[in-house]
């Protein structure tokens, strides 16, 4: 088909009432065809698999993090309980001073403040 003919088809296609249903087929026969390169479908599916792999990876990481946090929290809670029990056994009380390791004797504190020993 000569370029003049192509130009005529283009002009016709812009007229609002013109039936353009057959134009793509005519153009395709004249070499005006459009498609993507080889392996296009595989590339799309590859990108989708990449996305779902990333999503799977994210979920796995979150699950591991939750598990690790749970284990750490349990160990921490057990350590606190043991510390409190040992404090109680040594100091015979749960007072603030016993937690800080300061004796309850007021006299001792006064002597320390006055003499520095």
């Amino acid at each position, binding site marked *: 088909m000569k370029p003049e003919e192509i130009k005529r088809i283009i002009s016709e296609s812009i007229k609002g009432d013109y039936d353009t249903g057959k134009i793509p087929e005519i153009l395709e026969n004249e070499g005006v065809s459009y498609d993507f390169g080889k392996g*296009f479908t595989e590339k799309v599916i590859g990108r989708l698999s990449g996305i779902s792999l990333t999503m799977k990876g994210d979920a796995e990481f979150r699950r591991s993090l939750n598990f690790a946090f749970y284990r750490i929290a349990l160990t921490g809670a057990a350590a606190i309980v043991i510390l409190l029990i040992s404090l109680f056994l040594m100091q015979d009380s749960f007072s603030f001073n016993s937690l800080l390791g300061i004796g309850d004797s007021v006299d001792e504190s006064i002597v320390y403040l006055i003499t520095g020993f």
Partner: protein
Amino acid sequence: MKESYRLAGDDELVKASLKGDKLAFSEIVNRYRKMVARTVKGMLGDSVYSEDIGQEVFVNLYNSLPEFRGDAKLSTYIQRIAVNLTLNEIKRRKRFFSMFSHKGGDEMSEIEIADPENEEKREAKEVVNKVLMSLDPKFRIIVVMRLLQGYSTKETAETLGLPLGTVLSRLSRAQEQLKEMLGKL
């Protein structure tokens, strides 16, 4: 590929794709890749960027399939995604090129003719590409729908989400631009 999917309807393919069946989605891609190529390459020219946008269209489709209720045809839904992505790409290019040069991004579209069988066919494609690229994107999209997709004005309006009157007025404006362009070719 499963032979049954070649004969399957769009609804069946959508349902299977929603269940994660990649073979079903491959069939959707194969079925509509040419239609998407006509829109994307007609708007952006035959370049490597068009290939990327084409892939993006199908990735977006896959991600938005759960929202597809089947009110419109699958082809119309895909076409809308393709139109939105190409128009966004044109805007992005315009912004990018306006920062670095006074030329519009549209002018940077490469027009490559893949494996021309003969001079006449090569010329035909060149004429179509030159004409399309000479048009303003808002007129070009309407000409692409009419010329390359073979849509009626009503179908064009539905696909682009525009009133019929707007499509008709843009067609007449495009006609004015084209008259000048075709005279020069």
